[in-house]
């Protein structure tokens, strides 16, 4: 059995290494690469057209529905992981329990489907 603290020390170190590698690559590139900015280069690339206004504006909000549904199903997932590990010992009780849970969420999915919220235009 691997030691708990040591395991997560590994995880910690790997995160640090990931960040370090990106930093190192950028630094090397910054040292080696030339930098000759011109006004044309520094303009946002919009297929050669002169950009009109900023990109940070208002966008249609129905894109938000997908993020919303994802959050709900993600929360379902955090219950599924522990359930999958012990469902054999729970037996039929566990099946019914999770069945009711999923069925209630599927009602929401069906509602979204009927409201035509699941199509991306």
């Amino acid at each position, binding site marked *: 059995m691997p*030691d*708990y*603290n040591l*395991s*997560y*020390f590994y*995880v*910690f170190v790997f995160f640090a290494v990931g960040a370090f590698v990106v930093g190192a690559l950028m630094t090397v590139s910054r040292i080696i690469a030339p930098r000759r900015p011109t006004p044309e280069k520094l303009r946002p690339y919009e297929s050669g057209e002169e950009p009109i206004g*900023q990109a*940070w*504006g*208002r*966008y*249609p*909000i*129905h*894109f*938000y*529905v997908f*993020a*919303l*549904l*994802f*959050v*709900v199903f*993600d*929360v*379902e*997932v*955090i*219950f599924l*992981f*522990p*359930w999958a*590990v*012990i469902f054999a010992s*729970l037996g039929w009780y*566990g099946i019914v*329990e999770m069945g*009711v*849970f999923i069925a*209630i*969420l599927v*009602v*929401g999915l069906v*509602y*979204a489907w009927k*409201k*035509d*919220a699941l199509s991306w235009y």
Partner: protein
Amino acid sequence: MDFIAPLIFVILAAIVVAGGLAVVLLPRITGSALSMGLSFLGMAGLFALLGAETIAFFQVLIYVGAITVLILYGVMLTGVAPAGADRRLFFQKQAGWALVPLKFVGVVATVFALSFQSNVVQQPGGDLEPLANAVFRDYAFPFEVASVLLLAAMIGAIALVKRGDD
């Protein structure tokens, strides 16, 4: 080797608190969103340090992977709204800043009151199965109610977003 755990604790706590402060203090909303994600990540580290590994990764999955993305979606869809005139209720800002010294008093008091003897007793890892048994055996009813809550949230939010779309 006894100094490593406190050292990591201090690093993570600094990330959490600095991230939280940045959420409140940074003027730009994207800055706030990103530092919120950082703070959540540090919090996951603290959970792992406590030995609650399952909670730690649930934290990453839900808070960093889902809620931060959701909030960034909100930011992207509303854009950078032009700041209006400062018309808040007159006591709001003062009350907010008055909380700050209060907070430090509270923190210092809790540290002194609690930190001297009691060490956290840590069972090394393996908190998945006790947790699963607790949720699905002892707390089965709240578990089902949670799904109803999620359903209500889902339907309510979809109705809000889709209203006036057509």
